[in-house]
């Protein structure tokens, strides 16, 4: 296969899948947030963290896609093309996992905080730890691109 085509598949994965997971995360957390917002609007400023962390997943994808785009002219061998593809897969899987984590713990966090606002500081851990998963993926994807 053509190295450029393989790298482009990696690039498409790197931008497409994170955006999809960000969208799903925002759909789940955003709707929960809207529900709570009508009852307790004073909590919105704190709980918006779930939606923003979901949005950040798309930005990680964007970063990797952007770096791959910059590397495209250097990709001439199959090895380099494989690395581009793999980095796309890494960030895809990482953001999907992080997205799943944020969606589930985020919507529960929103419901729990609405019930008892004091639990926010301990429950938010679930969301931020899920989000850290994406950072790990990002780091490794980043290092793989560095090898091209």
């Amino acid at each position: 296969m053509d190295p450029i085509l393989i790298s482009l598949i990696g690039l498409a994965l790197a931008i497409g899948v994170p955006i999809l997971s960000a969208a799903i995360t925002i759909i789940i957390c955003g709707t929960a947030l809207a529900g709570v917002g009508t009852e307790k609007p004073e909590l919105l400023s704190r709980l918006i963290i779930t939606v923003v962390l979901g949005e950040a997943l798309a930005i990680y994808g964007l970063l990797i896609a952007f770096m791959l785009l910059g590397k495209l002219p250097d990709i001439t061998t199959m090895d380099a093309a494989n690395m581009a593809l793999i980095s796309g897969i890494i960030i895809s899987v990482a953001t999907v996992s992080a997205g799943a984590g944020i969606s589930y713990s985020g919507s529960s966090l929103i419901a729990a905080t609405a019930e008892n606002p004091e639990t926010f500081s301990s429950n938010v851990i679930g969301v931020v730890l899920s989000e850290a998963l994406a950072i790990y993926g990002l780091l490794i994807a980043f290092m793989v691109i560095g090898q091209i």
Partner: protein
Amino acid sequence: MEEMRKLKVMVYEDYIDAVIQSLGHAGIVQLIDMREIPEDWEGVLVPYTASTEAIAKCSDLLSKIETAFESLHIQPNDFPSPEIPITNEPIEKVLAGVEQKLAELPIEEIKIYALASRIDHIIDDLGIKPEEVEKEYALTQSEEKELEHIEFELIELDKTIESSGLANHQILVERIESKHLDDYDEIGIKFAELAKFVIKSQRYFGKRLVSLKKTVEEIEGTIETEINFEEVRDNLLTLWKIVEEEKRIAEEEDKFVRSAKTVFFEAWVPESRDKEAVERIMKASDGNAIIADKPPTPDEKVPIITHECPSYLQAFGKLECAYGYPSSGDIDPIRVFAITFPILFGIMFADVAQGAIFVIAGIIFTLLRRNGKTTKGGDIIRYLLISGEMLIYIGISAIFFGFIFGEFFGPSGVIHPIFLFRIGPFQIGGFEPTQEPMMMLKFAILVGAIHISLGLILKFINELRHKHYKLSPIPICCIWLLFGGLFMWAYWGGISNISKWFAEGSLMFVGLVVLPLLVILVVTGLAEGFMEGIGFTVEVFAETLSHSMSYSRLMALGLVHSAMNYLFLVLGGVEHGVFPLQSIPLIAIGTILVMIIEGLVVFVHTLRLHWVEWFSKFHSGEGIPFKPFKST
């Protein structure tokens, strides 16, 4: 921070209201809800139910007073709150007095006066001349209902006039200016119709209003006594305040428990006001009280006295409190937080130009807020106004790191990275993050290690303040482990050279990584037991690793910021620091987009680094603010 003391008080039941009123006037104690700690009294005492009856009575009276307000068209909150007399009487007696006074107030008569003034107001508004109205109109319902109907119909009339299209002045002018003869006809007809309609309705309402006025005046004539509306209103307001106050006291008393003849309660009091509180209780109860005054036990959750944040730290105070108040005896980290927050934000949002925009926006918001415009505008405007000073700090930080990483609206080439200094493999400044991401990663981890160790130092101080001397070496060992690991990584290399850590570097590994973990194991084992020690040591190891890794987001988000700006630079055709004229709108759009989206993401990540990685080291967030019970 001021120490708190706990009062345990037993008062003879006849004096309990006087005691609570006296304490309420001073506003120095926070009463503890005994219902939440049944283990302290259950089996010996029973809940104090007298207050529940008083609360019901208060609610009943309040609803009566509020109905009176409503029928007299008074908004109680529009008036200054009246002075209420200080009394030491029991709640039941005060409420009985209020009930009697309420019955004596000439509310029905006042209602008629209010009705008359409303009718006069409408007659004036419509320009009706009562002497010109001829026909009589028979009232079919009560005067008040009739007036309500008239008011409702008038609103409908306003709507009809509006929907005729003539009320909109601008449309009328536009149509006249367009000079179509047909339009003139149409407008003329509409005017004529409307005039007819208005005159007709004026007659119709005139008839009704005048008859109504007459009836009301007749009733007015039957009232013999002179009534002063303002006096009645003030009396009503005073009664309202008294009942509200009694209700608050009854709600506080609902927290108490009792024996057959005594009432028992517990309260927190600041050490400096301790004597005053005891004296007040003894005086109000005529000596019929037993008071135990003790310092809190170590495992008790003691409320903390929160101080108002200075206005330049207000935004940080809100962010810290959103996580939780510091526990009693802990350091309040707000000043350190106000320094580290802008630094971390600035690293991720490094840009000279955008930082300057932040500073300008911050100055504008601060000035607006200081001119007292906080209350206007929606939620977002209010947040921006509060965060005025914070925007200035993060803007300055962004400008500083913008110079270090050479960013001016992204890596445009206007500014070249400024090299500051080098610590081993860690270079501070002098490189472009997008060109040398690994250098940026090292920088981010170094910043993370310094930030975490700052948190650990604060934890060390907290342990000393709480006199937990046995556990105090743990934060020091964590710093040892953190910088030991960092040194190993810098000296031998990362994952690809991990085999060297265990071969040539094995001695160093034992000294820098294994030894601090062993010390932690021994210290925790001695203090809390061996199994806890193992669990805690594993936790420390995993936490140190994952928390330092987490700071790599400084690099990731810094690069994202740079890359997003770069995108617009490429689109605008900016090269070697030259901004062509046509690139300016694109750069402007890009800047707005980046500042809003990226700004929000970076802000949340900075917050997250503080809340999760930093606060978890030393700031439990479990403190309860001291809210003394205060009556007006």
